[in-house]
């Protein structure tokens, strides 16, 4: 279990955990005194957690329960995770940006009977107890001789509807993490929230391979984060292409000097890969493909966008194929199931997860070209074209509209709209464009408002009567 792995340097420890010989892990203590978890306002020495508690010593009360970790801060969430893995039956990771209105559904679907918070203002919920997590570690050495296999539940970012609850185990989450032998201390960091799949990978990597970790914070600017990460001696750091584009636009990008730079979560184009290599010439720049459902599938280390076609097929634990243009993945890292009574199956009958990410073969490499369902990814935030079209179509002078993606060097993609007017096009067209945009801004968050509106005489309809969308 995670807690015991704090004492151990190797991943063989994880394998032993699976077979149940946890006690052996307490041997071979690997200098945890120098390892730390660093947040915006506090730092915690990992050695203190071996016989200490961030939950005021109350973790035993959470034995066998379903616990929602709903802290504001990532550091307190990290501490709660380390303490509760192997104790709680289930931990549900709730990033701070998940809207409050979805919380009752999450609590009901996951059978939550305890909430971990780090601030006082949790409104009481019937049948759910609240526990406080702080960065003040108090001595507590409870019996962990019979740890349970905790379910780890991640929330996928819903665009309009509520989030989906995805069930993993520590084994599926850590399936891709290999024993790293490093002569010098490794300090990981990530722009991600560790309660999202991409960030959780980095959290586990740091904890399970004897490294330290610097956590980001929503309350901190990119520049301030870079300065803090640099001061903490970050050697390995990950983020989405959008995170990295924002970092490279900061005058303080040179505050970090990483050995390893990692991108995931969005399509990594050649421009961002090349820029990172030139700004951090000493770094190994790699991009990875992962999703909450399919897990981490592969890493690309040759500095080029896309991935070699030879990676399709079975390699080690992961098997990949392309069907109907989209990438399908089968491995021991995919999630177990969705957590809801009416949930669709997560894997197909063939045991593969359809990532719905569309691929195109050019020469001997595959390139990602977009989503099957046309979802537009604006700097990591998903936009359904239909929801933007619905807003535009409510404008009195609009007959119909088509919302498309447009490539962008800063956000990866932006939303743009083709609009057919209901009457003859006359008058001040610029003013009408502005009027439609203002109308959009009233109801849509800014990343969903079209960056440009083009008036077109008509839009193509398919035989089904639906708009023709060119997704890929």
């Amino acid at each position, binding site marked *: 279990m995670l807690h015991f792995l704090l004492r151990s340097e190797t991943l063989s420890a994880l394998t032993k955990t699976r077979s149940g010989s946890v006690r052996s892990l307490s041997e071979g203590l690997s200098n945890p005194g120098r390892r730390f978890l660093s947040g915006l306002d506090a730092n915690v020495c990992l050695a203190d957690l071996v016989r200490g508690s961030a939950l005021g010593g109350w973790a035993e009360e959470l034995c066998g329960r379903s616990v929602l970790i709903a802290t504001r801060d990532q550091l307190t969430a990290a501490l709660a995770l380390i303490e509760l893995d192997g104790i709680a039956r289930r931990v549900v990771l709730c990033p701070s940006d998940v809207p409050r209105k979805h919380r009752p559904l999450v609590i009901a679907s996951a059978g939550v009977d305890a909430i971990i918070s780090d601030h006082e203002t949790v409104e009481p919920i019937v049948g759910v107890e609240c526990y406080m997590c702080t960065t003040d570690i108090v001595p507590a050495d409870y019996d962990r001789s019979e740890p349970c296999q905790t379910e780890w539940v991640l929330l996928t970012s819903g665009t309009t509807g509520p989030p989906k609850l995805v069930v993993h185990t520590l084994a599926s989450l850590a399936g891709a993490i290999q024993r790293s032998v490093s002569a010098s201390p490794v300090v990981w960091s990530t722009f991600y929230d560790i309660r999202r799949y991409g960030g959780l990978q980095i959290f586990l990597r740091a904890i399970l391979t004897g490294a330290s970790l610097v956590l980001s914070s929503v309350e901190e600017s990119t520049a301030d984060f870079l300065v803090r990460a640099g001061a903490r001696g970050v050697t390995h750091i990950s983020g989405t292409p959008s995170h990295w584009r924002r970092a490279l*636009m900061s005058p303080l990008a040179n505050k970090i000097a990483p050995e390893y730079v990692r991108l995931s979560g969005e399509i990594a184009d050649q*421009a961002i890969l090349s820029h990172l290599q030139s700004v951090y010439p000493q770094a190994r720049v790699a991009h990875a493909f992962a999703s909450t459902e399919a897990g981490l599938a592969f890493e690309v280390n040759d500095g080029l966008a896309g991935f070699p076609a030879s990676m399709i097929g079975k390699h080690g634990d992961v098997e990949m194929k392309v069907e109907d243009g989209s990438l399908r993945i089968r491995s021991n890292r995919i999630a177990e199931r969705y957590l809801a009574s009416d949930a669709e199956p997560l894997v197909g009958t063939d045991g593969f997860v359809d990532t719905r990410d569309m691929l195109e073969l050019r020469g001997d490499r595959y390139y990602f070209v977009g989503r099957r369902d046309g979802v537009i990814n604006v700097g990591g935030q998903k936009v359904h074209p239909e929801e933007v079209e619905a807003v535009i179509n409510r404008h009195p002078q609009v007959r119909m509209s088509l919302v498309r993606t447009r490539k962008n060097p800063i956000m990866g993609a*932006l939303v743009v709209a083709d609009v057919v007017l209901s009457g003859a096009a006359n008058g001040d067209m610029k003013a009408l464009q502005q009027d439609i945009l203002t109308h959009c801004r009233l109801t849509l968050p800014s990343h969903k408002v079209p960056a440009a509106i083009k008036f077109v005489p008509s839009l193509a309809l398919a035989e089904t009567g639906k708009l023709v969308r060119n997704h890929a």
Partner: protein
Amino acid sequence: MINTMSIRFEVIAQITLVAEEQNRLLSTLKDDLPLLDSGLDSLCLAVIIARLEDLLGVDPFSSSTDAPFPVTVGDLVSSYENSIR
């Protein structure tokens, strides 16, 4: 043909327009002002670059993998000046 002065004018005009649209309080624009300290976020900058591509017919940051990411207002202006010249 657009001359250098009008390129600068278009870039500044788009910065001002997008800031206004997104209700952003803009700092006084000077060449050495870091873009991310100007009051614009990365979404604003993305929209500015898209609009400028429509107006000037060029996106210096997508057309070449060598063009560095703009850090200051001056970088943004000169990226367009260099790629149109």
